[in-house]
């Protein structure tokens, strides 16, 4: 996890935009902040410097009492997503402050984006680990199986970490050095170049550098 300031967002989908040269750029549209600072953590009090932010306002009737009490100090009712960002200049922030998008992200910046990849279910080794598999025709009879998984009497066991079939996807993935193509602060929208991990409506953590 990068120890930098950032902002929370929601992936909306993909489209393309043209730059001033007339070249099409594939972009992911992300709905971002404004994020509300819920708590400022300092080294003296909490052992590390960070700010806790909330994103996606919740109706008062949907908020449980512990969260309502926690958010009351910040002047909010409740949030769907509460995350922390490690930052050393915590003195710039105070509880209840709103962080607009354009203070964190600028056009042309390189950012790291963290999301949760789409779950693929139980998958075999070809899809999950990129194994080549066997021949399709000529009576091969060996198609998508993993093949040998180890030796015999020595070591007498399957080595740890052997790539095998299993659950695939639904992992936390950090995509580094993504270019910010456009920041539309009045609409709370950011355009990031290329694809971003996760499904539509998935939560994203965007780390500025």
């Amino acid at each position, binding site marked *: 996890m990068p120890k930098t300031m950032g902002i929370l967002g929601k992936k*909306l*989908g993909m*489209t*393309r935009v*043209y730059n001033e040269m007339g070249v*099409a750029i594939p972009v992911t*549209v992300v*709905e971002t902040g404004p994020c509300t600072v819920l708590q400022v953590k300092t080294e003296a009090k909490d052992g590390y410097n960070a700010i806790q932010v909330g994103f996606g306002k919740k109706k008062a009737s949907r908020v449980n009492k512990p969260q309502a009490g926690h958010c009351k100090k910040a002047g909010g009712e409740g949030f769907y997503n509460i995350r922390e960002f490690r930052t050393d200049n915590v003195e710039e922030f105070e509880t209840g402050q709103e962080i607009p998008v354009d203070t964190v992200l600028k056009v042309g910046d390189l950012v790291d984006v963290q999301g949760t990849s789409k779950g693929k279910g139980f998958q075999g080794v070809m899809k999950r680990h990129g194994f080549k598999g066997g021949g399709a025709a000529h009576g091969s009879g060996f198609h998508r199986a993993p093949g040998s998984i180890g030796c015999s009497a020595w070591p007498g066991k399957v080595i740890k970490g052997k790539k095998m079939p299993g659950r695939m996807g639904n992992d936390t993935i950090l995509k580094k050095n993504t270019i910010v193509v456009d920041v539309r602060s009045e609409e709370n*929208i950011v*355009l990031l170049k290329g694809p971003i991990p996760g499904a539509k409506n998935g939560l994203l953590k965007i780390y500025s550098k």
Partner: protein
Amino acid sequence: MSTVIDRIDKEQMRQDHPEFRPGDTVKVHIRIIEGSKERVQVFQGVVIKRKRGNMDASYTVRKISNGVGVEKTFALHNPRIEKVELVTRGRVRRSRLYYLRDRKGKAARIRERGIH
């Protein structure tokens, strides 16, 4: 689709193209940047395909250049296209005219479509 994405697409979509269909002959004026100079190249041919969509919409134009068939696919909303000119309208019976690739000369003719 998300309304936000629809709005971003609509900002960039071009409404200045004439209506054209597969089978029509068009002149596509392409702005080409060579170093610091900019010039316009005209590509004239038959539209053999139109792909629908918002920002994904595109069309393919086919022509015979020095006896060799040449096809170019353009994004409909590309700002580098100066204009699209409709030359003639053609009457065809399918939406993808891939059969023209196997024909040449007289057999590749397309009947003209009247404007009614």
